[in-house]
């Protein structure tokens, strides 16, 4: 997969923000979840998909009641 050029990433980012604004805060989580599923489905192989998930979670602390 070729990474997006900075200007294209910038435009995509802005579009995403505007779309999420229009959908409203209540639907933001499901919107981002759907976006994540589509991104995973289009990932370049299983390793790439796993890396996306791990990278997105990497510096977020697990919840206190998270199952081990």
């Amino acid at each position, binding site marked *: 997969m070729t*990474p997006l050029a*900075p200007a294209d*990433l*910038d435009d995509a*980012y*802005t579009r*995403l*923000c*505007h*779309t*999420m*604004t229009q959908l409203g*805060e209540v639907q*933001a989580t499901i919107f981002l979840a759907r976006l994540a599923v589509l991104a995973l489905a289009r990932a370049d192989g299983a390793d790439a998909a796993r890396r996306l998930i791990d*990278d*997105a979670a*990497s*510096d*977020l602390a697990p919840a206190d009641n998270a199952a081990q």
Partner: protein
Amino acid sequence: MQTEFAPYPFTTIHHAATVPRTGAGDVPPRHPVVIVGAGPVGYCSALGLASHGVPVVLIEADDSVCFGSRAICISRRSLEIVERLGALQSFLRIGLPWTGGRSFYRDTEVLHFTMPTDENQKLPPMINLAQYSIEQSLLDAVEARPDLIDMRWQTRVVAIEARDDGARLRLATPSGEYLLDADWLVAADGGRSFVRDALGLKLQGTSYEGRYVIVDILLDSARPTERLAYFDPPCNPGSTVLVHKQPSNVWRIDYQLRDDEDPDAAIEPANVMPRVESLLAMMGETAAWKPIWMGIYKANALTLERYRHGRVLFAGDAAHLVPIFGVRGANSGIDDADNLAWKLAFVVQGLASERLLDSYSDERVAAAHENLRHGTKSTEFMAPPSFAFDLMRRAVLGLAVAHPEVRSLINPRQTSAITYADSSLNAALDASAAVAAGPVPGGVLFECPLTIVNADSVREGHLTDLLGPRFTVLHFVSTVENARQSLDVAGGDGIERVPLRIVRIAPGAPRDAASVDAWDHSGRLFPMYDAAPGTVYLVRPDGHVLARWKDADAATVAAAIGHALGADDSRKTA
């Protein structure tokens, strides 16, 4: 407790009101150009017109240059313009040059950006200079032209009557009112333009809710000059803070208010002082400091639809308000003035049709839209307008630590020179397409060192040194003198009176230095412009390329100038 403020390290000169002697009779004195507003844009407009020999009256309601924290960054493009206006030395002597900046998320650096700069440049990409110094430097240049610039302090426009052939102004001074007629009126009277309101015109676009507090402080620190941005810093969680070093130990701090904060209370010194104190502690700045000035800012992204309304021309904040993030306010205004000055001068002097002034509006409205597009993106990051922008910003900042591929989203998108790609003035686009490198029609010159031959000396300089208040024909020639070195554009049909200079540039030192005007001693200029002997770049007085040819004759170049100036229809109406 009373907060002790320090004064700005700047001596403000207060100017007496200027009231002209009124002439006899009922007819008000008439002037070719009157400029309303002596800010950076008014001064640059006046200096630009004067450089073309056009007399102007410059009107200012106040009695001094501005006070407080306003524009603070001047771009390389603006410095190029200021150089042509004769004020560069003062800008460079006082200003602090810088090339980049750092952004932090919480306590981690997530971006270190640099602005484009290389060995070909003459000027720094940016300098920090407070607006009062910007204005004073320009005012010094204005005061050196009393023959052409009639500066009138403490003179306020109280009424305007727009007419087909100009405008009649009623002006108020401390010692009474008088009338003045102008063939052309330049409205450079700022964001709350009286002229704009008087003509019933409205800015259109978006106003943002997010507010920033702006504080200037006096602090002695050896920290280098760079743009510092702190997102969600430990000293002020949830906020965004910008820090810029100014000359003479002034530091400009901008910090974002939370949506639930009362803006009036927020600029109370009692609320500002602890925030600044905790910021400085976080930065490791331990020296004593004092506040100088405090204010509040709300981002706007607004413009008039057109900048020419008959005989009234709008420039700078009177024409458009762009967000501060990306430093496009004063810089775009200076660009307006530079674009307007030569066109208005040519029209006043009968060298061009009035249509040339429509191209001022077209080009600068297009530039404003580009500035607003970038400024809006910067604002959406710096002052997120919705929960979505806020959430996504947290995501980007958190990921940027480990993922360089997202760091470009944090880049502050600083102002850069704008290309008038769709300008109706651009000529010979087919011929331009055959030139494989160099600035396209509508673009500004790429800077490059070269050796310049003057009447009595040879010196190393830069390409932009060759520009002046005229068209410049960059004629790339051979080192060996031959008949093709000559390009007699000046005699072109219909452009006999147009000020123009032909500059012959050779690829290397010729045997007889006097046979050329410059040569490419670095060997970088010719390839940068895809130039060969015979190549021509036609450059407007504002440094934008009008046309370029791999090979051109004098008649072709003259026709391009004639096209831009509307020579045909000016003759029809003459």
